[in-house]
C-alpha cells in the first residue's frame, strides 16, 4: 500500500523559501515511493471561521467552500506536511484561516463526541510542520506550534516533526542554507519508510 503524503502550502507567494523547503520534503517522500500531492492554499477559496459554533450542535460546518474538501483530503492522507512562513511571529493569516476552519473536528471530538482517534491511528498518521523565518531568533517559531498542534490533533495526526529554518534574511534564501534543503529531503524519505513499515504490520 502506497503511503500518501499531502503537502499544504500556506504561503501567499509562490515558490518562496517555505514552499521550496516543502518541495524538498515532498521530493524526498516521492523518491522513497510515497504518493505525493501538493495543495496551494492561496489558490483555494475559503473564508475565515465565523465563530458561530453551529458545529457544536451536530459536528458539521455550515460554511460550504474549499476548506471542507481539503480537510477530507488531509484526513485521507498518511502524512500531511503543513507549510507556512513566519509573519509577525506567527503563521500566515492564510494558514490560520484554514486551521480555524477545523473547529468542526474539535466539536466532533469534544462536544458531540462522534470522532475519536485510537493511538494506532495516530501512530500511522504523521503531521509535519515546515517553516522558514527571516528573523534569526531561535524562538521565532514558538508562536506557530500550538496552532499546528491543534490542527494535527483534531484531524487525527501525530505531531511528528518540525522542519524549520530561521535567519532567511541573512542567508538570502533557503537554497543558501547549509543544511535545511537536504534535511527536509531526508526527512521526507524517512517518514515514508516509517509509515510503510507501519502499514505492513
Amino acid at each position, binding site marked *: 500500500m502506497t503511503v500518501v503524503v499531502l503537502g499544504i502550502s500556506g504561503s501567499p507567494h509562490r515558490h518562496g523559501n517555505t514552499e521550496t523547503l516543502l518541495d524538498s520534503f515532498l521530493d524526498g517522500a516521492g523518491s522513497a515511493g510515497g504518493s505525493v500531492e501538493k495543495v496551494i492554499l492561496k489558490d483555494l477559496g475559503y473564508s*475565515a471561521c465565523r*465563530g458561530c459554533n453551529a458545529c457544536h450542535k451536530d459536528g458539521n460546518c455550515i460554511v460550504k467552500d474549499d476548506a471542507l474538501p481539503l480537510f477530507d483530503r488531509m484526513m485521507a492522507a498518511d502524512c500531511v506536511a503543513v507549510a507556512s512562513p513566519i509573519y509577525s511571529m506567527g503563521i500566515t*493569516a492564510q494558514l490560520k484561516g484554514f486551521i480555524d476552519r477545523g473547529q468542526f473536528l474539535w466539536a466532533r471530538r469534544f462536544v458531540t463526541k462522534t470522532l475519536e482517534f485510537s493511538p494506532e491511528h495516530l501512530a500511522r498518521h504523521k503531521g509535519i510542520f515546515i517553516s522558514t523565518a527571516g528573523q534569526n531568533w531561535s524562538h521565532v517559531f514558538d508562536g506557530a506550534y500550538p496552532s499546528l498542534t491543534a490542527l494535527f490533533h483534531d484531524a487525527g495526526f501525530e505531531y511528528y516533526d518540525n522542519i524549520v529554518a530561521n535567519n532567511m534574511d541573512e542567508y538570502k534564501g533557503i537554497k543558501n542554507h547549509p543544511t535545511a534543503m537536504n534535511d527536509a529531503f531526508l526527512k521526507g524519505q524517512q517518514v515514508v519508510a516509517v509509515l510503510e513499515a507501519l502499514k505492513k504490520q
Partner: protein
Amino acid sequence: MTIKVLAFAGSPRRNGNSETLLDWVLASMAEDPEVAIEKVPLTEANINICRGCNACEKLNKCIQRDGMDIYHDKIIEADIILLSSPIFCMGIAALPKALIDRMQVFRSRKFVLKLPIVPPERKGKRLGAFLASAGQDWPHVFDAAIPSVKCFYHVIDIRDADISYLMINHVDEKGAIDKHPTAKADATKLGKTMIAELKKRLAA
C-alpha cells in the same frame, strides 16, 4: 486636546465575548469628553491578507488597494490603538492575524527604509491594549497570540511596556463574559487608566 482612540474588533462573530470586552473598555474611555473613539469591526474592514511580495521594502507603501488605505493613516494618527480577538486553535483568529500581517509596510518603513512611523514628538506617547477571550480554561491559552500582538504594536511605534493586556479565558458561548466575576470591572478600570496615563504623557 482630543485623544484619538482607534479600536479594531477582530472577532468574526459580532458582539461576542472579545468584542464585549473591547466595548467595556471603550465605554469607560468615552466618559471622558476629550476622547474621540473609532471602532472598526474587522468583518467590515475589507483588509486583504499580506501577499509577502516585499514590495513595501522598496515602495514604502503596500501595492494592495483596500481598507488598509484608510486604516494606515488612522493607525499613525491614533493616540491609543486597541485590538480584540478571540483565541481560535490556540492562536489569534485569522482576521486579526491578517491585519497584523499587513503591518509589514510599517516594519519595512521602520527597519528597512529607516524612516519614522510617527513624528518624533509623538514617540513614547502612544498606548496599546490587547483584549482577548478564549473558550479554553488553560492559563497558557493566550501565550502563542502574544508574540504576534507585540509585533503589531512594535512596528507602529507602541513600545512593549506601553501595551496592556486583558485576556479572559473559559468564556465560550456568546454572552459568557457577562457572567465573569471581574472582566467588566477590569475593562472599565483599564479604560480609565489608559486615558489618565495618556493625558499625563501628552502634558509632559
